[in-house]
């Protein structure tokens, strides 16, 4: 059987991350071809609904690429998306989806190499996680708060079960 190849949906902001991805291409940098890029005007435009829709529709991971703090073309879009993704990852963790599947990265227009590196890292990580599924702790009531508490598949005495 061939190795599992994760599918990634990448929402890239027009001004930074998308330009960075273009630069990676024009520089002929090698990186895994697992992502479907979707260019958005600002990372702040990415709604949690889109991320979840991508996961539901068969993506194993979602990458959101935005400008570095302070560089947002629309001043504060990347700050909003950072807070959104922070909350979304908490909710996903409680639902039994590894929060690592949703990744937010700052990639500037000059950072082609960084984009290639992020893609490599993300694909590696998703290969380790495997295809998306819902794993919930058996019987344990997921506490609120920190992601690692809620994400308790490896908790002693419990065994993850598939939904």
């Amino acid at each position: 059987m061939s190795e599992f190849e994760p599918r990634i949906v990448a929402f890239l902001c027009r001004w930074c991350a998308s330009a960075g991805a273009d630069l990676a291409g024009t520089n002929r940098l090698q990186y895994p071809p697992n992502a479907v890029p979707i260019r958005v005007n600002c990372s702040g435009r990415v709604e949690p609904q889109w991320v979840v829709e991508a996961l539901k529709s068969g993506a194993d991971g979602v990458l959101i690429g935005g400008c570095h703090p302070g560089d947002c073309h629309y001043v504060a879009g990347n700050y909003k998306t950072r807070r959104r993704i922070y909350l979304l990852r908490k909710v996903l963790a409680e639902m039994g989806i590894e929060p690592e599947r949703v990744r937010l990265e700052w990639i500037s227009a000059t950072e082609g190499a960084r984009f290639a590196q992020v893609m490599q890292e993300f694909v590696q990580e998703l290969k380790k996680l495997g295809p998306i599924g819902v794993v919930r702790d058996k019987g344990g009531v997921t506490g609120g708060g920190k992601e690692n508490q809620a994400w308790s598949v490896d908790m002693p005495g419990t065994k993850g079960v598939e939904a």
Partner: protein
Amino acid sequence: MTSPDYRLNSLSPVTRHSSPLKIAVYWTGSCGGCDVSFLELGPALLEVLSKVEIVFWPALADAKRKDLENLPPRSIDVTLVNGVIRTTENEEMVEILREKSRFLGAYGSCAHLGGVPALANQTNGVVEFVFGPGYRPSPPPGGEAEDAPPSLLPQALPLEEVVPVDFVVPGCPPPAPLIAQFFERAISGEIEPGQVFAKDKALCEECPRIREERKLTRIVRPHEVQPDPEKCLLDQGIICLGPVTRGGCEAACPKAGMPCTGCLGPTPKAGDPALAMISALASLVRAGEEGEAAFPEEDRILDGLVDPIGTLYKYAFAKYGLSLKKLARRREEVRA
């Protein structure tokens, strides 16, 4: 899903005026609050009762499953089901009711969206782990096999996952104005297929609280503060689901100083209430000047939301929360 044939209008005018509306009310996995909620109509209840004939309502009148089974198909005009579908018996009963009813509606949050009992879906092993030792689906001593308690389903389901649903009377329990509106429509035979007896506009539209410049500098739980009686609860850091929830209850909870928890279900525009609310909350949170230096403090504020699923999906987890089954189903739709 619904043929126009289900409409009450299809009754001949003679039947419609000469015989009362035949109704059935059934509870599945519910607390019983929905059955009691009809009393909220007050004196109007007497008027309603004079115009309806109760065919089947286990909470009120004695009738057994076999009585229901003996009814001819589509002989009940309107059936209201309250409660989540939790056991195999629930499933069987609503299937019988569907067959016997012209119109079948979800009454209350549990039947509509899964409700509070569906928060149990957060853990998959709930059947074995919690009920395994004590809950044994076997007949009681000396009983017949058919007396055995029904098996629990692996997940609690909203009504629409089991049978086609014609209309929804939402709420936990449905507020009196919406119940009255439902009976008005039902008695005059004007229920639209797919109708939801609540407003499409958000609850905030009917909330008298004053919204100011919106910045959240903290998130608190309702018991931790004495809220200002005039100001918007969300502005005070209390998570109120008003912006993503249907109106229709006349903002009963916010008026009483409690945040909206979303019982009327999300507005059509909001879709998944938790995700829509995440968007809204994240946009409002501020820890001083926005920027990298504020990130840790912003995260600390957001951590104030201690139970994201129980708060944001309080009633809608069964319908909107992700499960492997839903992931698989959606993927097949995408491939098709």
